[in-house]
């Protein structure tokens, strides 16, 4: 790939010929550090510079609490953080925010785009406003809380952890879910739990349509206790009732039926 200094997307940055990648970027070292806490203003910084500054604070300076101001809805912020720390993001993020993390507690005061917390292994992420589609895709552990609405395919391929949504969720929520739980306070779009293998989805509002092999099950006292505990932690208001949705276990992978026999079963 040919690299050039022209045309730079932001003055003073060396970028590749597409004006996108910054091959030799360095942490800008602009944060104010006070003991174990730090904060910095991300206005005008590229995602790479924001992440370099964040990683410098957490991994080199040994800071445990960071506040990022003005993230500007940029993509791929705070990804791949594999340590316990507290991060407050004062604003909104774009796509792929906080993915592949293991351990941090992250509070986002704005909204987030697609694929927030993808592959999160442990930790807590709380989002005060809405989130886009693919929220918590392939989530493996930890709690992901969205106080507003979320888009389509929430928790697709979820393998563990808990996703809590204060508002509505779009189509194909829990698609191919394998483990973990989702608590949706509002309505769910069509295709809820389509092709889920395992796990539980609680819905407080209306369900437009169930997906293939998703069935309604009876709520148990243990389910109520779990929901109450989570709502207590995150100080959320609980809807009057929840429906509980699980895998019907009638898809082909649960039997050895021939194709036309499967059709009869479904």
């Amino acid at each position, binding site marked *: 790939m040919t690299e050039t200094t022209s*045309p730079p997307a932001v003055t003073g940055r060396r970028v590749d010929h*597409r*004006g*996108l990648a910054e091959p030799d970027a360095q942490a800008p070292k602009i944060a104010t550090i006070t003991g174990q806490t730090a904060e910095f203003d991300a206005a005008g910084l590229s995602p790479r510079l924001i992440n370099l500054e964040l990683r410098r604070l957490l991994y080199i300076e040994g800071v445990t609490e960071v506040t990022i101001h003005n993230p*500007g*809805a*940029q*993509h791929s912020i705070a990804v791949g953080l594999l340590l316990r720390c507290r991060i407050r993001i004062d*604003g*909104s993020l*774009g*796509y792929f925010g906080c993915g592949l993390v293991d351990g941090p507690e992250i509070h986002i005061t*704005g*909204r987030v*785009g*697609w694929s927030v917390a993808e592959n999160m292994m442990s930790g807590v992420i709380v989002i005060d*406003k*809405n989130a*886009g*589609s693919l929220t918590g895709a392939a989530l493996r552990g930890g709690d992901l809380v969205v106080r*507003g*609405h979320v*888009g*389509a*395919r929430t928790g697709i391929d979820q393998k563990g952890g808990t996703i809590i949504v204060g508002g*509505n969720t*779009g*189509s*194909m929520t829990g698609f191919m879910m394998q483990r973990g739980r989702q608590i949706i306070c509002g309505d769910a*779009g*069509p295709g809820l739990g389509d092709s889920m293998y395992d796990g539980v989805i609680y819905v407080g509002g209306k369900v437009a349509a169930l997906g293939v092999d998703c069935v309604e099950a009876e709520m148990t006292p243990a389910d109520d206790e779990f929901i109450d505990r989570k709502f207590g932690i995150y100080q959320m208001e609980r809807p009057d009732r929840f429906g509980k949705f699980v895998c019907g276990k009638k898809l082909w992978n649960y039997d050895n039926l021939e194709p036309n026999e499967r059709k009869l079963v479904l």
Partner: protein
Amino acid sequence: MCGIAGIIYKGQTGDIGREMTRMLQAMRHRGPDSTGYALYGETSDLVIMRFTLADPTDHRDFDFSERLERNRRKVESRLAKLGATIDRVQGESDYAYRATFWYDGELKPLADFVEDVPGAEVLSLGHSLEIIKDLGDARTVSEQYRLDDFRGTHAIGHVRMATESDVDIAGAHPYWAYPFSDVAVVHNGQLTNYHQWRRRLERLGHRFQSECDSEIIAVYIAQLMSDGLSLETAMKQSLDDLDGVFTYLVVTENQLGVAKDEMAAKPLVLYEADDMVALASEEVAIRAVVNREIDTYDPYEREVLVWNR
């Protein structure tokens, strides 16, 4: 991947050329191949026609300039033959032109007659619509066509990552809804019943400039509107008629609409204020024109929304 963006002001005008450039440039990573704009200025008595006589990738042979000049004169003479009174014809680049003229006849024969000139392609026809598209990112196209000074009421734009057709102006969005005045579309996605709809619309006499599936949407919507449907009703019907994954934006002289397929497979972020609406594939594009923390949301599956200017 591709990126789409739209902006509409309610009851006022704005710097839509500059703003659309900022929005599209913020999404340049979604499509570096070409960039296009459909801009709506003040409605004029004149017909505004944007057209090209060659593609930027065409070989510049020794009589390239003379041939284009000859063909430009042919276009002018054909407009005059059909009864148009020409106001002016400006060269916007060495192959793209903007013509304004008085004309109250049918647009279809006019567009067909112009496109019969070798190399000619009508990008848009209307009383306020102007489609500008070319290769490169938004900043490149905006500088080339001096779009920063374009004021108007609403606009849509597109950055393209070419997948199923060539990197040329014909493959770039937006698409004008030939032969309907002032209708244009940008699309992010893929239509799987494209050939079926193309044959149907060709049987009704429509022509297509490209092999790009997105062009179908523009003509399809305009055809339904000419049959008497409102923009919103036509877009709702498209959710059943068009197969595939799509988020598309349509603009008419007075309206801007968005539709999402039943899987909500393609992204769109929406910001609505009292005086304007901005929407784009990524929030970072909206933030390029509304530089503060804002409340946005993603429309859901099978959602159709329409705003008036």
